[in-house]
């Protein structure tokens, strides 16, 4: 298996506060890797650093061996990393279709490729097709989440960074979103998934990391993490689980 994304000893500061204290992780070609952690553990910080939105204090980020430390955020997406940010950051006063077109901004001149990418997104998220000329701010929370993910796919990335895709969604929608993440992965796109919903994340991931206050404390295969006692207690509601047994 070849390593696609490699983060080594990454330190990130917000002013004088160290948000990431030497993180190392890898995503192999074709994998779904999840990063679990509580609020404020540094999960979003990690993704924002990979996408070039935060200055790197020390450490390295590489995509297929190519260093990304000094690459601007708007160039990172050209390299093949796409980031669907948390909080359904759709461009609310733009239509659904305009949002999707911006997802393919880096090859906006290739009209055919853009419309093909759009059709692929519409086949994953049919609801977006029927809402294409609606302002994205008027979509429901679930639809906005789908738009954020669909927009992230428009650049046909090698790896998609997903930040809390299940946040605030109804259980049925959460199930659907995770199903779609798997479908996206089946199309050959690697996924780095940041989640609080550990149970769901581990059910689709190949491997996982646990992030606690800026450090990675546990890592391993998803199946091992599921049975890891610490993970169970902290993220899977372990105590309740034991009682039921």
């Amino acid at each position, binding site marked *: 298996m070849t390593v696609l994304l490699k983060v080594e000893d990454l330190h990130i500061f917000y002013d004088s506060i160290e948000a990431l204290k030497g993180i190392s992780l890898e995503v192999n070609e074709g994998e779904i890797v999840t990063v679990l952690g509580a609020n404020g553990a540094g999960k979003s910080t990690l993704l924002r650093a990979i996408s070039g939105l935060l200055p790197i204090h020390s450490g390295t980020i590489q995509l297929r061996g190519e260093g990304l430390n000094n690459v601007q*955020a708007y160039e990172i997406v050209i390299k093949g990393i796409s980031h669907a940010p948390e909080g359904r950051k759709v*461009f609310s006063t733009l239509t659904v279709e305009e949002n999707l077109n911006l997802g393919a901004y880096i090859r906006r001149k290739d009209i055919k490729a853009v419309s093909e990418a759009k059709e692929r997104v519409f086949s994953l998220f049919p609801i977006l097709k029927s809402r294409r000329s609606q302002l994205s701010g008027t979509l429901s929370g679930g639809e906005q989440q789908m738009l954020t993910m669909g927009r992230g796919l428009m650049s046909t990335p090698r790896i998609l960074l997903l930040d809390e895709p299940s946040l605030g969604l109804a259980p049925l929608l959460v199930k659907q979103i995770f199903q779609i993440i798997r479908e996206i992965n089946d199309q050959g796109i690697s996924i780095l998934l940041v989640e609080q919903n550990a149970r769901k994340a581990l059910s689709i991931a190949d491997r996982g990391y646990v992030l606690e206050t800026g450090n990675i404390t546990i890592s391993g295969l998803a199946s091992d993490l599921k049975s890891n006692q610490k993970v169970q207690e902290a993220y899977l509601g372990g105590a309740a689980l034991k009682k039921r047994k």
Partner: protein
Amino acid sequence: MRIFLEQMINGLTIGSFYALIALGYSMVYGVMKLINFAHGDLFALGSYLGFSLLVWGSAYVTSHVGLAGGMIAAMLIAAIGIGMAGIIVERIAYRPIYPAGRLPAVVSALGVSIFLQNAIMVAWGPRYQAYPVNVVPTVRFEIGGIHITLLQIIILILSFILLALLYYIIQKTTFGAAIRASALDRDTAALMGININTVIFFIFALGPALGGTAGVMVGMYYRQISFTMGWNYGLKAFTATILGGIGNIPGAMVGGLLLGIFEMLGSAYISTAYKDVFVFLILILVLIFRPRGLLGEKVAEKV
């Protein structure tokens, strides 16, 4: 009725000046959250640039390209020159100061405004300057008893073309969507691969370029220009921006045209002496009753 319609035409004419200038305020505010107080003076600089081109170049112009060609050339050169001036102002006076926050940038903008006003005074002198008389032949048409001059027709058509072109770029192209996206959320726009510096370059070139063109139009329309004109027009165009909803491109156009009409109807039916009062009364009323403007978005609460 005849007076009403004639005043409507007059209002639309000066309204299109306001609209063209207002676009520069609105675009810059939308993306940078900065009120570019130097914009009015860039407009004045455009007016003076057009003046010099028409005066100094008049011999060449009349013999080679004709007056109509000279008019187009003056507008084009003013647009390009002021567009470049806009970029230079951004580089020198705003870019180094962004990290310090929004308020210092506004103060810097006021500084540039004072600088430009004085630079114009030094370069062209403190007295009024007069545009040449014969740039556009003074032809009057009468349609159903309503008088309209050839110059007004030219200004209205040209402004309409420019406004339509800008509307198309901002609202219908992917690059326009990128500009609107950068205004909404710069970080997420960067995740799409949008280079914010390209967007900033574009808005600081195009806004002042439209303002400079309006400057030449105002010079031809009123013929008299002064180094302080940027303040007056700038403030009115800024009012138009607020009226339409700041940061909103169609809003700036509608706001400009409406403001011109209000001003003309007010001075025709109430009093010419109070025409500026009507304009700023509107500013006050909008700020009190509808601060987001006619077409503006509801300002989302920041959590």
